[in-house]
């Protein structure tokens, strides 16, 4: 891993809670606070997906939030990277058997880094985000057309429309 000072740009992270139990979410918030302090790498947490370079997703995908996740991903400007945090985001985890759970978030968006753990520890998350930032740097320099090694988007499982809000 290169020294942090070699990052040319400051990657901004948007966090999306997909179908999580909150465990990974509060651990991600703990990453931002003084003990772990993600900001020392120049990594900022933002609320607006249009400002963000890194999408950090916790939890699995269900019928209702798959479109929301896809929407957040589509709003982010290219180049962008996705970090799947925790086993739920990877495979569905303990909830994989649920009738409402589609599985890991790679069913909906292409994932660059998987962070294991239930919940993932803050150290592991920071490592995952920094690896994602390295991938982002390589994408910054590469031409958009040469990124074809990524998982193609058309592999997404078609998701039925979520029911209308009551």
């Amino acid at each position, binding site marked *: 891993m290169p020294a942090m000072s070699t990052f040319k740009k400051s990657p901004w992270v948007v966090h999306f809670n997909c179908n999580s*139990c909150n465990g990974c*979410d509060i651990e991600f918030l703990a990453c931002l606070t003084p003990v772990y302090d993600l900001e020392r790498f120049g990594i900022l947490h933002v609320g607006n997906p249009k400002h963000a370079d890194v999408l950090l997703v916790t939890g699995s995908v269900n019928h209702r939030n798959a479109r929301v996740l896809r929407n*957040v991903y589509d709003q982010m400007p290219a180049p962008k990277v996705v970090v799947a945090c925790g086993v739920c985001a990877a495979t569905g985890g303990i909830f994989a058997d*649920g009738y409402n759970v589609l599985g890991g978030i790679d069913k909906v968006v292409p994932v660059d880094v998987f962070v294991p753990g239930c919940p993932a520890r803050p150290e592991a998350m920071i490592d995952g985000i920094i690896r994602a930032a390295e991938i982002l740097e390589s994408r910054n320099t590469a031409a958009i057309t040469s990124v074809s090694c990524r998982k193609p988007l058309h592999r997404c499982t078609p998701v039925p429309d979520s029911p209308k809000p009551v």
Partner: protein
Amino acid sequence: MIRRNTIPFGPQHPVLPEPIQLRLVMEDEKIVEALPSIGYVHRGLEKIAEKKDYVQDVYLAERICGICSFMHSQNYCQGIESLMNVAVPDRARFLRVVWAEIHRIHSHLLILGLLADAFGFENLFMRLWQIRELVLDIMEKTTGGRVILGVCTIGGVKRDITPETSDYILRQLDEIERQLSAVLPSLTHDYSVKQRLVGIGVLPKDKAYELGAVGPVARASGVAMDLRESGYAAYGELNFAMVTESAGDCYARTLVRVRELATSADLTRQALAKMPSGPITTPVKGSPTGEVLARIEQPRGELNFYIKGNGSRNLERFRVRTPTFANLPPLLHMLTGCQLADVPVIAICIDPCISCTER
């Protein structure tokens, strides 16, 4: 005539750590109606519980919510134990109180920090979460996990607290209280903070009772209701005074949580001091039969589990009613008539846990 507009608040909103949508019907800046739209984190947990073994469900119950995870597993174990007539060893009952109260401290610090973030006091948010890490250190030292502990099991607990660890917890609690005494006055006495909290989101006592508020939301409105008084686990052998306030606004709810931090630290010390020696777990044989309603006081209020067993390894029905679900109708009442800029503070002040609610 003022035109009505509907503003969707969420599901992806910077102030909310979790996805919930509130559709706010506005007249200018004033909210005339708030409609929640949920289901973004529904995992079908109750159905998964029927597919798994009833012992595996302890770990599933723990993952209903990552913030108050220990109490979910504790409530589930207490329910199954009462179904199977298992007498939990005394030491295990006290150990459960220790972990539950440490969890309460962590949960209250978490929400007070998020509240500070919601009204724009980022420094306070960072300080409170920094102190919260000391609480997580206790959990990591005693159980190995920071958030999901996995120590509760049917018939007792899995890990013991040695006298050295007990001393460590006491030292750490003193350090937490010392650091909090420097930080909390800015939450309770600061002029700007009071401007954002006093008189905002008022829930009168009769409304709190009528709408079925639970936990700190009910206690801040003067409804004296705390399940710990019923004496489950080892609470019957410990002394504590229930914290209530009467104003029913966001400030009162904050005060209740701030004062409960001290209560929880005191209960932890009492439980560590009075803890008897002996075994920490008892063997359990057979499968649960019959039905039970298990109740427990969580950081957010009363948690209900309905458990029905039919003598097989799988449960016939597992139903979860979490405190945030009970506090949603009071939230909608509080939001009506308030200003749009106050929505984040009021929403955070009921300590919403959407993952619990949607299971």
